[in-house]
């Protein structure tokens, strides 16, 4: 695949980059963590200087980043086409909500609910992750369009099951959640998600995932256990979708099965492909641009739902790889994986070997 150039963005960011490069290495190492900490403090105090509306927008941006990055793992990194991400989100949302509204108070923990919120999210995420197996197992045999249809069916089934359980409100929905999701919480979960996903992507599993996208048969013929990889990917993606669902439920404080329809899944798909496949930076950008754009288009009322799809179609025609297709922001690449680190290591290995023996015949010279 050809990669689109990022000339515009890199030109804008060039001075910043230069300033960063000029810092001494120890300072550079701590720049990212420091910036993250500063942003956390800002997020923590944001309610005092950002109005409620924009707080809410920020929260949606964060939730969408989690959804987009996790779906990107399946659609972008593994190259499958899942259209049912909202199904996993629903599982997380309902489980977390039931915990904070019913279970915790019933155990006499009512006043601790705000502190137990992360636990509720985590359990919601785990429940969603478990249901990820529903897609993982069929994916052993079924691929491509047919797997897409399996995920679609999954989304519809979840919605329909929720509509039929009266205890949790059926089609009327479930409410009573406190407004526990704050900008700071979302920020923390976004950082956790991106960090963990990054580590996964740059591991054995991540490479296995990419190899399935590139050529599944070749990948199993170089020892990749594709089943293990698929289980991992679907469970992890579903887990984070579940976390996002829990956060979502505790900001709008009212969920119903329709909130998790195929339209929600489509939204996430749009963000993935807008930002670009196989890129966490792209997921962050895609989710942010799309969410903010839809807010800015709000004055158009109904027409904004016309503009959105139109933009998507134009994007696909003129930039089919999204903003950052298969590229990554530098700070999201672990230092030991960056091009210059690898090149330096290679140089060391070459010198070491040259001192000992000859390479394979006719090698090296042709580069």
């Amino acid at each position, binding site marked *: 695949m050809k990669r689109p150039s990022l000339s515009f963005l890199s030109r804008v960011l060039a001075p910043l980059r230069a300033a960063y490069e000029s810092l001494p290495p120890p300072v550079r190492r701590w720049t990212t963590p420091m910036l993250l900490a500063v942003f956390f403090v800002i997020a923590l105090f944001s309610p005092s200087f950002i109005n409620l509306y924009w707080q809410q927008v920020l929260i949606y941006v964060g939730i969408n980043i989690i959804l987009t990055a996790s779906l990107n793992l399946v659609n972008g990194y593994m190259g499958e086409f899942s259209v049912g991400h909202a199904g996993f989100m629903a599982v997380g949302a309902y489980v977390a909500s039931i915990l904070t509204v019913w279970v915790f108070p019933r155990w006499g923990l009512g006043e601790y609910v705000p502190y137990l919120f992360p636990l509720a999210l985590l359990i919601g995420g785990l429940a969603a992750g478990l249901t990820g197996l529903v897609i993982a197992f069929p994916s052993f045999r079924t691929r491509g369009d047919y797997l897409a249809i399996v995920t679609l069916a999954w989304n519809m089934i979840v919605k329909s099951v929720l509509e039929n359980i009266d205890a949790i409100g059926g089609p009327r929905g479930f409410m009573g959640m406190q407004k526990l999701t704050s900008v700071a919480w979302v920020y923390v979960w976004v950082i956790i998600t991106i960090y*963990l996903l990054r580590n996964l992507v740059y591991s054995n599993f991540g490479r*296995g995932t990419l*190899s399935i996208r590139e050529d599944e048969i070749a990948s199993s*013929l*170089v*020892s990749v*256990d594709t089943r293990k990889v698929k289980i991992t990917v679907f469970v992890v993606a579903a887990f984070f979708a579940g976390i996002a669902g829990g956060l979502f439920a505790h900001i709008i404080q009212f969920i119903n099965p329709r909130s998790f329809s195929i339209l929600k899944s489509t939204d996430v798909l749009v963000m993935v492909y807008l930002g670009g496949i196989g890129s966490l930076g792209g997921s962050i950008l895609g989710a942010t641009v799309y969410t903010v754009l839809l807010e800015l288009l709000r004055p158009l009322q109904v027409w904004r739902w016309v503009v959105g799809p139109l933009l998507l179609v134009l994007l696909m025609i003129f930039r089919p790889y999204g903003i950052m297709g298969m590229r990554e922001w530098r700070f999201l690449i672990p230092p030991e994986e960056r091009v210059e680190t690898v090149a330096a290591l290679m140089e060391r290995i070459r010198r070491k070997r040259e001192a000992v023996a000859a390479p394979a015949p006719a090698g090296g010279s042709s580069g």
Partner: protein
Amino acid sequence: MPMLRIRGLTHYFGGLRAVHDFHLDLEPGELVGIIGPNGAGKTTVFNLITGVYRPTEGEILFNGHNLVGKRSDQIVSLGIARTFQTIRLFKNLSVLDNVRIAHFARASYGVLTAVFRLPKYVREEAETRERALELLELMGLSEQATWVASSLPYGLQRRLEIARALATEPRLLLLDEPAAGMNPGEIAELMELIQWIRQRFDLTIVLIEHQMRVVMGICERIKVLDFGETIAEGTPVEIQNNPRVIEAYLGEEAVV
């Protein structure tokens, strides 16, 4: 007990009999060639050994393990690696990643170890990176380690495919027409390379090839397939003088 022992291997694609009653005994260290006209069933034999297809009949034993019914990745982990007739690299990934992916089965850390970057992950990753780079260096791909695989020139792509197969640390290497699409200079280089890796990694090799120069030049023993049947077997000299082989090839040439 031979390293690889194939008995009565037969495979049907629907009504088409692609391989029939194929036998092979491989001793460690051998370099055996398989030749035959187009559609003779050569690639299918590799596909059956590596678990891409399940044979209709027959048994395949590798160092005492029965391979029939095993998944490809399990077979590869037992020590059999292969390349493909048409290059199947992971095109959009770096040369380094192409080789590292072949370390998959050897990595022992789990998902949680990876996502939390525990010491074991960091240690194993460093080791994998170093070993993969060493192999690339050895195979003459050091300058291209960070390139995207599809940007390599054709000859180097072939070389990378061999490197990737070697990264699985095989005992037995199956090469499917490695000289396809190469010019005479590249072919000479390739022959040298095959013999070199055979020594260096202590390999047993089965080689499918249309280029007679390659097969006759480096194989000790050759099997000839035609329409799925084994029509001849022997040393290069014996094969060159075998009337059935000449007929099979002449028959093909008459069509071409």
